[in-house]
């Protein structure tokens, strides 16, 4: 059962023609969805044909729609809609983030994409991760990016935000990404649709039932029990990164002449 089936009210693969059976990948909506999305992205990326962006938007939407239509359903319509909403937010915001020209808008759209991802996390019964993603990613990391962006490039977009670096990257990057996604879609779609659900990992013990009220307790137990060493390593890594960043900034400063130093300080403000 998927959206295509739902809309066409067929839902069975018996209708596929012989040609489609011999080349199943060409028959799938996903394939065409990916192609359409790639073309749309190609048109939307900065530095291209200006009018083409609208076409790109259309193509991109079509591609996303086709992909969504080809995905199998996992629940009832309400769940599906909820999922499509969140995933759509994440993906559309991501696409806009890379195709919009002002880096500040990029950061904002990325933050919105993060909200979508956080929603997806919540939906996967990982509320802690969702909230932490917002708090750390959107709240700290992206804000820091914005901060640096405003320090370095307060005027918004610049010339190099409007072009890419030659003819090479756009087609190649898009083709590569499309091929990667296509391969993966193919691999994922070829999985048996009714695989046996594995039992809980014995290492994780009874923490398998995530999303339960004691979700945080389970998470904490796993984090500080099974993965204690990793936590220590991660903490050390954070410390090292902190020291490293400070060291870079301190030693990276170019020596300035006295009178220049004053001006430089003023400019830095």
């Amino acid at each position, binding site marked *: 059962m998927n959206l295509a089936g739902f809309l066409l009210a067929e839902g069975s693969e018996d209708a596929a023609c012989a040609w489609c059976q011999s080349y199943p990948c060409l028959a799938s909506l*996903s394939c065409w969805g990916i192609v359409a999305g790639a073309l749309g*992205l190609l048109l939307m990326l900065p530095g291209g044909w*200006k009018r083409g962006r609208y076409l790109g938007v259309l193509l991109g939407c079509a591609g996303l729609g086709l*992909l969504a239509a080809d*995905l*199998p359903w*996992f629940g009832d319509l309400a769940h599906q809609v909820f999922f499509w909403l969140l995933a759509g937010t994440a*993906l559309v915001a*991501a*696409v806009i*983030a*890379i195709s919009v020209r*002002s*880096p500040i808008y*990029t950061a904002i759209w*990325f933050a919105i*994409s993060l909200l979508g991802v956080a929603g*997806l*996390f919540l939906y996967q019964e*990982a509320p802690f*991760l969702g909230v932490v*993603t917002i708090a*750390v990613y959107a709240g*700290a990391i*992206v804000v*820091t*990016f914005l901060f*640096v*962006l405003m*320090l*370095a*490039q*307060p005027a*918004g977009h*610049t010339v*190099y*935000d409007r*072009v890419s*670096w*030659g003819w090479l990257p756009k087609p190649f990057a898009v083709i590569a990404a499309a091929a990667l996604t296509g391969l*993966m*879609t193919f691999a*994922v779609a070829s*999985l048996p649709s*009714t695989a046996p*659900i*594995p039992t809980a*990992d014995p290492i*994780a013990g009874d*923490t398998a039932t*995530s999303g339960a009220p004691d979700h945080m307790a*389970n*998470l904490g137990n*796993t*984090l500080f029990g099974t993965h204690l060493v*990793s936590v220590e390593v991660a903490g050390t890594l954070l410390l*090292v*990164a902190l020291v*490293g*960043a400070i060291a870079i900034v301190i030693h990276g400063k170019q020596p300035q002449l006295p009178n220049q130093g004053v001006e430089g300080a003023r400019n830095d403000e």
Partner: protein
Amino acid sequence: MNEMALLQNYLIVGGLLFAIGLIGFLVRRNMIVMFLCAEMMLQGISLSLVAFGRFHGNLGGQMMVLFIITVAACEAAIALALILMLFQRSQTLDIAFWQNLREEGQPRFVDQQIPEEIEDEREWPQLTPAGVEPELDLEQQRHRTRV
């Protein structure tokens, strides 16, 4: 709820997010944007990991994502410091500026024809110097008269 289908859905979404980030990383030239795109790729991976974790019914995937967030934070700290340093030296965030680190004797990479400033792009704000009267345009004049 069909767990397998859920997993497939999440994997596709994660993969798309990864691919979009990849494209952005390869195409954009602003160092900070590139870095944001790298973070986007990490998000795609996080999504897949969480989905796998849920599919397998344990918290391993979420643990991985937690560590990914940690590493991303470290990355952000160091990369931003480096970017600031690079900016101080070159006064630009353009990654192409740093192609002067290329192999000796190689020709300089020729920039694409930079498009002309398009009319509707004039809207991008410019920081006005403090204390100097902002230049008023027609639109603003009209606006004023209506007050």
